Structure formats: C-alpha cells, structure tokens
C-alpha cells in the first residue's frame, strides 16, 4: 500500500519509520493513560534511537563516497577503540591496551587484508566497512573474554605456576595450561554460533540480503563466509593476545608478576 503511494525508496523508508514511530507513540500514550510510568522512557529511547541511527546513516553516506583509504582509516580507529574496551577487562594484566591493539590488528587486520587481496571481501566501502567492523568487534569481545579468563586462571593457579618455575620450567611451560584454558573459554561463543548457524538463528547479514531480495542459497554462503571469518579472526586474535600476555606476566628473571 505504502509502496504505491511513495515510489521513492528513501521517502518510503522515512514513512515506514514514521509508521513504526506512531505505533510506539500509541503504546506510550496507553502507558500514560494507564499510569504505568514508562511513557517517558519509551519516547526518549525512540527519539535517541532515531537520531543516532540516522546520524550514523548520514555519516556512512558521506564516508561511502570517499576513497578506499577512508575505509582503512575507519577500521583503524575502530581497532583503537576496540583495544581500549578489551583492555578494560584485563583487571591489571600488564600492558593490556598495547597487547589488545596489536593482537586485534594482527588477528582482524591481517585477515581482512588477506581476504581483500583474495577478493573474498569486496573493497567497495559499503561492504568493506561493515564486514571489517564485524570482525573487529568480535575480535574485541574475544580478547576481553580471553584476558578476563587468563586473569582468573592465574589468580587461581599461582601456586602451580610458581611450582613449575621452581622446578626449572620456562615461563612458557608454566603458563601454557592456563593460556590454553583461556583460549578455549574465549572461543566457545564463536564456535557455538557457528554450530547453531541457520538452526537457532538467521544472522544479520543473511537477514539483510534476504530482505534485499538475494537468492537464499547465495545469502547463506555469504553468511557462512562472515561467520567463518569471525571465528578465524577471533581465534588468531586470541592466540596472539594470550601468547603475548603470557610472556608479559613474567619478569626477565622469570618471576611471576601480579602478586
């Protein structure tokens, strides 16, 4: 019905947004009528969400017109912010910000580079930026989980680590069981999402492509590409982050820090 009234797709989208907004406002009105006191939250959240998402859309419109270098710059900034967020979960692990940034750079950045080189990820910015940001965001979550778990393991097993050192083990040998545990723990969400792919959930990219009218099997393949890249990038990131961090937990005289 709306499609016939508004043939211009941008106009159509705006009107669709308006219709959903009006529906939400009706619910807010009911909440006010029935004195349930959530009308303010609903209205504020609606306004905020609309402004934020349209702003991001406008920024993307601007960015998408730029050269490829702009995309690289945007991802670079995202990696910096991601490193900062991951480091906040490190609870006193030494050098957490630097280790996070380097490992996300290596894990996601390198993978994105190789995939762009092979043509698996398109260089068109509307593809490059969202796909790249998904990899970065997932690497970030994985590093957070890995650091959080490593910290817990070291706290729980300080005695075992020092017993190993006292028997003449290298720091690498002493910390390895706990690096392994942290790696596994950090990758479980990624592995599970691959395992349940298509059965429990139809993820974002596929949904988007289906909404855009793509062939379902083509959409499925592309979704697999994304999820597989996320797992690969996250694993590479977590492995680098944990191995770097594992070394930094010891002094040059091979003493465990964090006492």
């Amino acid at each position, binding site marked *: 019905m709306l499609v016939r009234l508004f043939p211009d797709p941008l106009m159509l989208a705006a009107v669709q947004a308006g219709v959903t907004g009006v529906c939400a406002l009706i619910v807010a009105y009911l909440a006010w009528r029935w004195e349930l006191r959530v009308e303010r939250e609903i209205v504020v959240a609606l306004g905020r969400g609309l402004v934020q998402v349209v702003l991001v859309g406008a920024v993307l419109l601007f960015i998408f017109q730029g050269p490829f270098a702009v995309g690289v710059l945007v991802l670079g900034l995202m990696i910096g912010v991601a490193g900062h967020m991951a480091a906040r979960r490190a609870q006193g692990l030494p050098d957490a910000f630097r280790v996070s940034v380097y490992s996300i750079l290596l894990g996601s950045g390198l993978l994105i580079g190789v995939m762009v080189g092979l043509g698996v990820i398109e260089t068109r910015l509307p593809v490059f930026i969202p796909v790249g940001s998904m990899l970065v965001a997932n690497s970030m979550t994985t590093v957070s989980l890995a650091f959080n778990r490593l910290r817990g393991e070291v706290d729980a097993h300080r*005695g*075992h680590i*020092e*017993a*190993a*050192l*006292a*028997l*003449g*083990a*290298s720091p690498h*040998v002493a910390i390895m*069981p706990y690096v392994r545990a942290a790696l596994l723990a950090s990758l479980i969400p990624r592995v599970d999402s691959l395992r349940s792919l298509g059965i429990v959930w139809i993820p974002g990219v596929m949904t988007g492509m289906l909404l855009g009218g793509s062939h379902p099997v083509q959409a499925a393949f592309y979704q697999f590409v994304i999820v597989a890249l996320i797992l690969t990038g996250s694993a590479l990131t977590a492995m680098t982050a944990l191995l770097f961090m594992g070394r930094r937990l010891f*002094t040059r*005289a*091979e*003493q*465990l820090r964090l*006492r």
Partner: protein
Amino acid sequence: MVDTEGCVPLLRAVELSRVVDGKALVQGATFTLYPREVLAVVGPSGSGKTSLLRLLNRLDEPTSGTVYLNGVDYRTISPRELRRRVGLVMQVPYLFPGTVADNVRFGPRQAGIILSDKAVEALLARVGLPGYGDRDVTHLSGGEAQRVALARALANRPQVLLLDEPTSALDEEAKAGIEALLQDLLASGEFAAVLVTHDLAQAARLAQRVLVMEAGRIVRSGPVKEVLRAGSAFP
C-alpha cells in the same frame, strides 16, 4: 670463597632485602649454608620466613643484596639452572594434573632429560611411595601428595632444598611420617636444606643451626640447641 671455619659455603646470602610497596618483607638477611647442613628458619607468623625462602631460589627479586651459590653470584646463573640446583617444596604440594610419574618427570624434562620408569620408581621408593607411579594425583591423601612433591623436587638432584613448612598443612599422623622421611633424606647428605617451620621441636629434631626472624630481620642465629634454649619466646 673459603670461610673462617675452612669449609666452603654452599650458599651465602649477603644483605638480602626485599621491599614491596614501602614495606620491608626481608631486611638485611646475611647467613651461610654449608654442604650437608640443615638450617632451620623460625619466627612468628608474618615475620618474613616465606619471603626469605622465595629470595633464595629467586622466585622473588631481591630489592638489594644477593646470594652466592658455590661462590657465584646467583644473578649470573640462568633462573632455570638456579632453580634446578636450589629446589623448593612448599606448604601445599601444588601437584600438576596427571599421574604421580608425570609429576616426578616434570623437572628433569625441563632440562631435556626423560627419566626411565626405573628412575621414577627409585625416587618414589625413596619417599615411601613404591608402585605409585601410575596413580592419578587427584586421589592422593595430603601426606602422599607432599611425598610426591618431595620426590618431584629430588628428581632434579638439587644441591640445596628449600622446605617451607612442609608438614604444617598435614594432620598429626601424616606430619610424623613426613618428618621421619625428611630426617632420612636429610641424613643422606646429598643436599643441604633450609627448613622453615613453626615447630621449634621439629627445628631441633631436624636442623643443626637455626635463624630466628622477627619483622623481616634475622634477630638471632646459631646452633639449634643454644638459640632455642636462650629465647623461645614467640608463639
């Protein structure tokens, strides 16, 4: 370096101190350990006995001072080599998951030596656990676990064994067993030992000399009988 008594010291700590966050855990500790000797370290809880012991195999870094092992400054020895020569058994055994034999083989394997089944069995027999090699460590009693920790440390053939209250986490019966075992092992003269203990009677039974610590300092030292008779006024 030859001492006045004409004996070459095995280990010599010189003005060892460790300060953490402005607090002196160990302050100016100087003492000598001779070959085959057992030196007890006693003192009230929190006086720095464990802190001192951890400096001797460089598990912690001295803020100042150093240790000479066979006359050589231990900072010039690689930490792994140093820790193989100066073994440590803690209050809690901290066994690694796996079998008893895995634990006994751990130390030598770090130096690229794979102990034969016979060598493992010989070590286990020495600590009173013959035939225990294939047992999973999760099912050991406290006393058995501490024996495995001892066998694991002995597997490196240390020159010095550091013992941090090796019996204090055990019940009376296991405690007596471990103490008898220690008496045996120490009498073999294969290594010297520094024994931290709360138990003055145990110190008197196992050691020849004793250091008394208070608030990070060595306040008295000498032959066990003299020192412990002179002032045993701490809890």
